[in-house]
């Protein structure tokens, strides 16, 4: 189908923020056929060497932001996004693309999207398990995704998928080359694998 002139495979780098295990994500990206590097610190060569940056995050909002700031990722990611390059945030890695979170009100997020994370309004927390996505995107419509979170973005003008847990929240967001997934594509079965392949293309 594709008549792309630039048919070389994408080069994908996963940002290691020392926040959770990267094995499943790395396996998913490699299985999709992309060349993969895991990077702890930003360096200027990344801008020319890589096409896609994937930023997974687990744990508290403040911890993930502290890792981002301590290793100099904040400035680098601003540069990356300014250049229109693709950035994919997963779980807390999506939350930090926003301005902040009620989990740690004094911590500033990256602010690529407007809005703040709020605690899920459901008696059982964390939300753990599978939910069907309400999405207009063919890649996500009516698919089941695996969630593990206690906080989420409730409203976003750039939301591409929604899910209900106590109330509605943004399961996925996208603006241009900036992607966020609140769920874990690397744990979401065959659907998740295909989504990773698609988003790293």
């Amino acid at each position, binding site marked *: 189908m594709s008549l792309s002139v630039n048919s070389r495979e994408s080069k994908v780098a996963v940002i290691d923020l020392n926040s959770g295990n990267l*094995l499943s994500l790395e396996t998913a990206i490699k299985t999709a056929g992309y060349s993969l590097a895991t990077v702890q610190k930003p360096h200027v060569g990344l801008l020319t060497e890589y096409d896609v940056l994937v930023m997974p995050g687990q*744990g508290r909002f403040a911890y993930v932001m502290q890792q981002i700031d301590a290793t100099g990722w904040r400035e680098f990611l601003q540069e990356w996004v300014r250049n229109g390059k693709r950035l994919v945030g997963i779980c807390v890695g999506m939350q930090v693309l926003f301005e902040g979170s009620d989990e740690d009100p004094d911590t500033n997020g990256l602010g690529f999207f407007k809005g703040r994370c709020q605690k899920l309004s*459901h008696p*059982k927390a964390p939300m753990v*398990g599978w939910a069907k996505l309400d999405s207009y995107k063919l890649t996500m419509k009516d698919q089941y995704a695996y969630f593990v979170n206690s906080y989420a973005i409730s409203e976003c003008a750039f939301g591409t998928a929604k899910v209900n847990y106590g109330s509605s929240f943004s399961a996925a967001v996208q603006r241009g080359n900036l992607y966020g997934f609140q769920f*874990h594509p690397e744990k979401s*079965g065959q659907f998740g694998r295909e989504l990773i392949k698609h988003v790293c293309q």
Partner: protein
Amino acid sequence: MYVNNKDSNSDLCARIIPCLDVAYGRVVKGTNFKELLDMGDPVELAKMYEQQGADELVFLDIKASVDGQQSALDMVYKVATHLSIPFAVGGGIKTLDDVHKFFHAGADKVTLNTMAVEKPDLINQISTQYGSQSIVVAVDVNQEEDDSLALYTHGGSKRVDIDYHQWISEVVDRGAGEILLTAMHKDGTGSGFDTDLLAQFGADFPVQVIASGGAKGPQDFLAAIHAGADAVLAAGLFHRGEYKVGQIKEYLINNNIKIRNTEC
């Protein structure tokens, strides 16, 4: 709850979780003579259950305390690099360092039973360092001769003098993300889950409860979910090939339970 109606305020699905007993890096089955029957390769069996529609898997290393951990860690790494659904690992976890090794090898969650009772601080430590979603506390209860329910550890061999209700509240306070609640008096009987027990921890309970012990057929899964279980764990009926995960799910979907449909 998990009933499928459009006014529900939750899209979360009830999970179906096959449980595999492992020893020395193989899937095994205990017999009455304490011999272990080799049931196959963990990666192949895990992939088979993933294809059948399992939402998650649990591996319990029933010999971990004897064996040391290397074979279990090797197995976890292989499973993690071949599976695209989450899985928990339990058996023989004694310290925060053990927990770190299992997460490093690729496990999504750890399950604690004996150590939770003997060193309850470990629950707080794991929850603080890795988050409550990473820890499942397995609570084994047995119906005694006077019909009261008693708490057990050591794979169901040692009775503990703690009220199970009080214990469950305590592990939740300490940061457990889920409770794996096994009714020992139902385990292996095929007489269905203990729905009275499950009903004590229903929709308003602050963490999810995984029902275990007694499944014979799809109607037992339905009864457990109706009683309030958020997820249902079973071993024998899957391993013996009596039901595929997909058949259980189809039955639940036909009975209007919110389930991750993998048949499309």
